[in-house]
């Protein structure tokens, strides 16, 4: 198939940026979306033009590196699918496809489709962990965990930290990401000890990074490639409220 791409080009963080139009001829349905971009880039380089910068690594939907807004939707709108796992069989000959970076103030564009998601790392650094050092930990089976709790914790822990939730939210809220980590650790006995402290610290950092508030539109859950449930946000709000209360007491 032959496609037309409208791609966001921006030389660096200071450049205002603009859309450029490119032809993508001879695209095969079995190609992944990023393989399609590889082909276009190879043509650009051969013609002496600078290729489109975009992030990817695993190309299996697990590292959370790829971060494209495709036709207005983060990751392109296929259910539970990252941009790297999206295949061209979902497009048709003659389509025009718009490709943009994540757009959110806390995620500044570095170049073209590449953004800086360091804010997510800083939120984890603020409290997204269990404070145990290496060594001296108890025997793994010493503490049974209810299977339902372990399974629910795993549902939350599957978050790949891609940031699509932020990109989809009109308020650029990071609540789905933050609540996934707070829930994953808070649901397990190992993480319960620091539950209050963790919620307070991570939420404070999230606010400091400039992420917006949640107004429960559900757009984050809809684009999440790992289908992280918005129920975790409710759980986080509960945890946070309890922690605040205890802090006040």
């Amino acid at each position: 198939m032959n496609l037309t791409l409208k791609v966001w080009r921006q030389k660096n963080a200071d450049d205002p940026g603009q859309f450029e139009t490119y032809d993508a001829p001879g695209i095969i349905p079995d190609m992944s979306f990023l393989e399609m971009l590889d082909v276009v880039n190879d043509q650009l380089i051969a013609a002496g033009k600078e290729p489109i910068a975009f992030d990817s690594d695993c190309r299996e939907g697990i590292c959370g590196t790829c971060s494209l807004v495709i036709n207005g939707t983060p990751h392109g709108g296929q259910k539970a699918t990252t941009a790297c796992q999206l295949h061209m069989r979902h497009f048709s000959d003659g389509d025009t496809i718009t490709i943009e970076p994540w757009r959110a103030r806390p995620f500044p564009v570095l170049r073209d489709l590449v953004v800086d998601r360091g804010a997510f790392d800083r939120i984890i650094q603020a409290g997204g962990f269990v404070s145990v050092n290496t060594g001296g930990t108890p025997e793994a089976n010493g503490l049974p965990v209810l299977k339902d709790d372990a399974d629910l914790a795993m549902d939350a822990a599957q978050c790949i930290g891609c940031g699509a939730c932020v990109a989809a939210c009109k308020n650029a809220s990071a609540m789905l990401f933050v609540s996934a980590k707070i829930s994953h650790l808070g649901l397990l006995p190992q993480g319960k000890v620091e539950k209050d402290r963790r919620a307070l610290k991570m939420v404070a950092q999230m606010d400091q990074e400039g992420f917006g508030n949640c107004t429960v539109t559900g757009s984050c859950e809809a684009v999440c490639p790992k289908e992280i449930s918005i129920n975790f946000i409710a759980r986080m709000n509960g945890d946070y409220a309890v922690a605040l209360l205890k802090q006040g007491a």
Partner: protein
Amino acid sequence: MKLDAKIPAGPLAQKWDKHKFEMKLVNPANRRKFDVIVIGSGLAGGAAAATLAEQGYNVKCFCFQDSPRRAHSIAAQGGINAAKNYKNDGDSVQRLFYDTIKGGDFRAREANVYRLAQVSVNIIDQCVAQGVPFAREYGGLLDTRSFGGSQLQRTFYARGQTGQQLLLGAYQSLSRQIGLGNVKMFSRTEMLEVVVAKGQARGVIVRDLVSGEITAHSGHAVVLATGGYGNVFFLSTNAKLCNVTATWRAYKKGACYANPCYTQIHPTCIPVSGEHQSKLTLMSESLRNDGRVWVPKKAADCDKDPKSIPESDRDYVLERKYPSFGNLAPRDIASRAAKEACDEGRGVGPLIDGKRLGVYLDFTDAIARFGEAKIRERYGNLFDMYERITGENAYQQPMRIYPAVHYTMGGTWVDYNLMSTLPGLFVAGEANFSDHGANRLGASALMQGLADGYFILPYTVGNYLAANYSAAKPETLSTAAPEFKAALAAVNERLTRLLKINGQRTVLSFHRQLGKMVWDKCGMARSEKGLKELLRDIPALREEFWKNVKVTGTGEELNQDLEYAGRVADFLEFAELLALDALERKESCGGHFRVEYQDQEGEAQRNDDDFCHAAAWEYAGPGKPPILNKEPLVFEDIHLAKRSYK
């Protein structure tokens, strides 16, 4: 060079404890005076950086991804081994040790492997304490399953995302140390040179991948935990950005490279669909617990609907050839069986270049026995992934799979302390020549990465620092020293050269061509003739690269084309060593299969008289052939045996 593996004396089971007792310590108050540089934030690097920082050292950690959480370890699916014996099925440290040595076709160092099996149990305790959500049984205890190359259930898992969960555990520990100010993290930063002064590794030169700025960092020890070199084949299951640059640069500074010909081909990957392919996707080997591998008995049936082929016309290759392990035969053996069937014209799937490269992995029986819901619970995400890529539903028709490059057992040679032949340079995880000999067993890479990072380096690095520096006032090499200046200039010169060539071909086209050459002649089956051709063709391609590659943009900006060019340039040098090592190893063992060395039944033939050694290649200078040093492998505890899975 004389290789000294520094294996502690004494009985195997006591070596590590004894060594731990004998190693020198740095007083906690003095540790913050030491700078340790860790390159890599995967399981090995992330665990090492976090633990060294917890101990009080000053750590700088580097990775080229935008976050340490995205290291390639994140992609591991199936699980991690440990000799916990929770299933009461007869597991023990001794058995895990034996399975790993045998799985590696008796080409690993006994003492290291024994230590790995010993610390495996601590890893699970550590990860559970961090909140890693391993699968559990209704009683609340940890669940385990079986994996290729083993007859018991010692593999711990977190759905199909074990690597992700283990890496997030290490990342969270690392993040805690970053937050506390004990680790300074440099993401989107690539190490391009090791700095050596007076014969010791004293720092690194790195490039900031956003600004292009090149800077020098001084340290008292350097750890490389930079992953494997599978992408020398271009197509592999590794993440796109995995590369050999760090260990290759270190090789040229004196860190010998061992056994590069030991590469692992994984039997269960989604077959290639066409020329555009940028990478291959693994379907976890855990699928072989319930899936049955088969091809049609007759070539004429290959394009038929698999369901229409009656049982009597199917060849369940692995069950037929290896009745006691069946579909759980180790990876190299299962891969070769698939290749043979396809070479005989009995492959399935689309015809590409006149061949059908695929075999069926069929779940019909398992679905009939356990129900679709149970299979969905076990492998749901893998079946979904398969459908996303191929557009086919594997609950209704068998999957098609074919072997692909997956893991590299070769790597920087290290002694028992994980230190390379360049003093002060430690190498961990997939980057070292590892504990897996000529073939790695499933679920053992995660174990090794975390063993190295959490439980071995934190002791051995400290020992090195205590032995080589004054603990109260360790001497720091200034980044203004001539050694740093020279390394910085070399990095600059190389980047400038790449940018100036302005030829006709893209970096990608060179990488693809190199990969195809190496796969064809140094992939699943290798011959003297093919390897000699490869050794003739690689230098020619490399020469063309340096004359005719086109790299766009400048060095002072985010330039992915330039990053890629540097990595492919290193692969073009490294590939030659890989081919040379494969040529020199005149035997078949594990992942290294030389067609000249097989028995009547086509099984690999080892040659213990001449090749029971690790081959550690030493850089001899530009244009000179590398020097081969041999570390004899001495087996005190284990009898060398033919590796049979029949």
